[in-house]
């Protein structure tokens, strides 16, 4: 009986591995493209940096565009200042269960957002990136975004990468920020 269970488990694990390899071998293609655009090309220190994210269905079928009420749960940003990656804010770390203070617990509290995208249709997110990444110093920041097509399901998912944009954070009081 014990051998039978072992054999069954082995077969089960083998099937999972094959499925995983097949899944990767099939190399799922992305169903959407991701594009980002800054609301303002330059801001002053202390001003918010807001990015508009656009997903466009590039298939000929309607796809799920299910997300949650916080884009930072399904979008990952790469933010660097003058070429050096910047730190996540405590808010983002806490949101992902990282950097919890003693006594704090990770908890899953979220709200799904159910949506679909018809062929060619787009959906949009507005993300205040400076709320989640340290953009408090003047400099030139480059920003790109990543989104998994099937978050939490790596064998079925593809990472979709956006374009990279540049935002200048100017010292406080710099008049050129207002002209942008």
């Amino acid at each position, binding site marked *: 009986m014990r051998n039978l269970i072992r054999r069954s488990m082995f077969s089960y694990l083998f099937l999972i591995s094959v499925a995983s390899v097949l899944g990767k071998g099939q190399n799922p293609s992305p169903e959407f493209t991701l594009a980002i655009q800054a609301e303002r090309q330059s801001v002053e220190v202390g001003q918010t940096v807001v990015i508009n994210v656009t997903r466009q269905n590039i298939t000929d079928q309607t796809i799920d565009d299910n997300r949650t009420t916080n884009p930072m*749960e399904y979008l990952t940003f790469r933010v660097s200042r003058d070429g050096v990656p910047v730190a996540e804010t405590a808010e983002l770390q806490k949101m992902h269960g990282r950097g919890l203070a003693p006594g704090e617990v990770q*908890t899953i509290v979220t709200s799904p957002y*159910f949506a679909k995208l018809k062929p060619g249709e787009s959906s949009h*997110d*507005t993300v*205040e990136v400076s*709320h989640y990444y340290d953009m408090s110093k003047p400099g030139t920041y480059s920003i790109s975004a990543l989104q998994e097509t099937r*978050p939490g399901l790596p064998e079925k998912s593809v990472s979709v990468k956006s374009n990279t944009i540049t935002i200048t954070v100017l010292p406080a009081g710099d008049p050129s920020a207002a002209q942008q």
Partner: protein
Amino acid sequence: MAGQTYPITVLGSDFVTPAMAAADPNCVASQLTVSVPTGSVILTDVNVIDSTKITATVQPMDTDPAEIATLTLWGAYFGPMVVKAPTRLGAMTKPDVAQAHPGPGALAKPAAALPADGGAPPGPYLVGQTTAAVLPIPVITWTYNNQEIRMSAADGSPLSTQNAVVGQQIVLTTTPKEEDLRGLGFQLTTNVLNEGDSWTVDGTIIGGYNHSIGSGSVKTADLTQTGLTSYWVYPSAQGNPFNVRYQYCVLDLNAHFQCSATANAKFSIAGPTGKISTDPKANPNISSSSFSVLLMQNCDTPPLTVAYLSFGQIQSGTTCHPIGTAGIYFTGNITSKGSVHGNVKWEQIVSEGMIAKSSPSNTLNLNCGTGLDNGDPYPAASGNLAQDSPGFGIEPVTYTSGLRKFSAVMYLMWQSSTPDSIMVPLASVQWGFHDGATGNALGTRWSVDKDSKASVGQNQAITSGEPPAFGYPTWTTHVTNNSCAVIE
């Protein structure tokens, strides 16, 4: 002040009345004249009362710009004089007799009238001169699309009513400019006659709506300046445009306070009205069947499996990519009488978010915060549709039950497509629920508690608002998914 009539009094000595001049051929009657560089000032009722006092009336024209008017006294010169008037009139210049020159009618005087001692002829001579600044009626100008539209006439009355929309940035400027007034010796000062405000504006205006995830607040319009940048929040009634009035006040060199006449402008403000429809329909007893509990994984590495209790029907997927139907849908219905173009936006303010997770030996109480719900604008929305399905995870085995109380207000907002516009509130709906789920000791079977219930209030149209919020959603805190504080 332009457009207004003022009595003036000239005080001095040795003035010559017409009667005295008629009686003595060596005397000329004292005379007053007034001149301005570009406009005109009417001088009437000049009356040489006696040898020490002259009265008259001056009236700068409506159209007079900010400029200096010169008041000149002609006649036989005997000594210094002082003019008393409500405007900036100081002591008259004492002219040097040698510099005195003939004034009106002087050429008509025969040379034989020259005194035998070779002194000055009887005149009239320029006896004294003083200046008074003309305080012009202000003009209101609206700068729109890089064009300057004059809103008020020379006499201060409104010109054509202009059309704008709610949330549109309205930039008004005025003349005279502060620097022009300063050049005339005037210092702009607080309009104490109007509670310190230079502007009086009908309707509800604000100076801005500052909003980010961290905070949302309304900036009050600054009505004390010579310019006004503001936004109307609510439309004007059909055929009843909003009036805008502007008046400035100054202190002259003698610290005398005076205010200009009032310039008037009219704006007709269009804007949509909005209504929020909800699905499920407004119902005080939305039953436990609106909730679901499902064992799900989150998207962390390694993933965490939880019993996910949600307002809404979750069928499968992960907590960051779920599949199902939402607990509540909001539809914004926008109607407008005129042609207005803009976009719908949503903001949600959470007013309560408490969670308790329990096992027979342990209870964890969490405060998941209040304030703006995750994003600005509210992220789970597209166009005139928004939705929400608040859920939370209960760690199986560790806990055998979970409870949640949640309430929020969803706001329907609208933003004009005009440049530099801001959102305006149209409607709101208050809603909330309390739900719970209970699992077995192994954490493998979970069910929604029967007394779980949601309630959705009626649509509240927002058509007016008092400070400080003026009807807007405001916040100083925010709610972030997966971020709750443990309550000790």
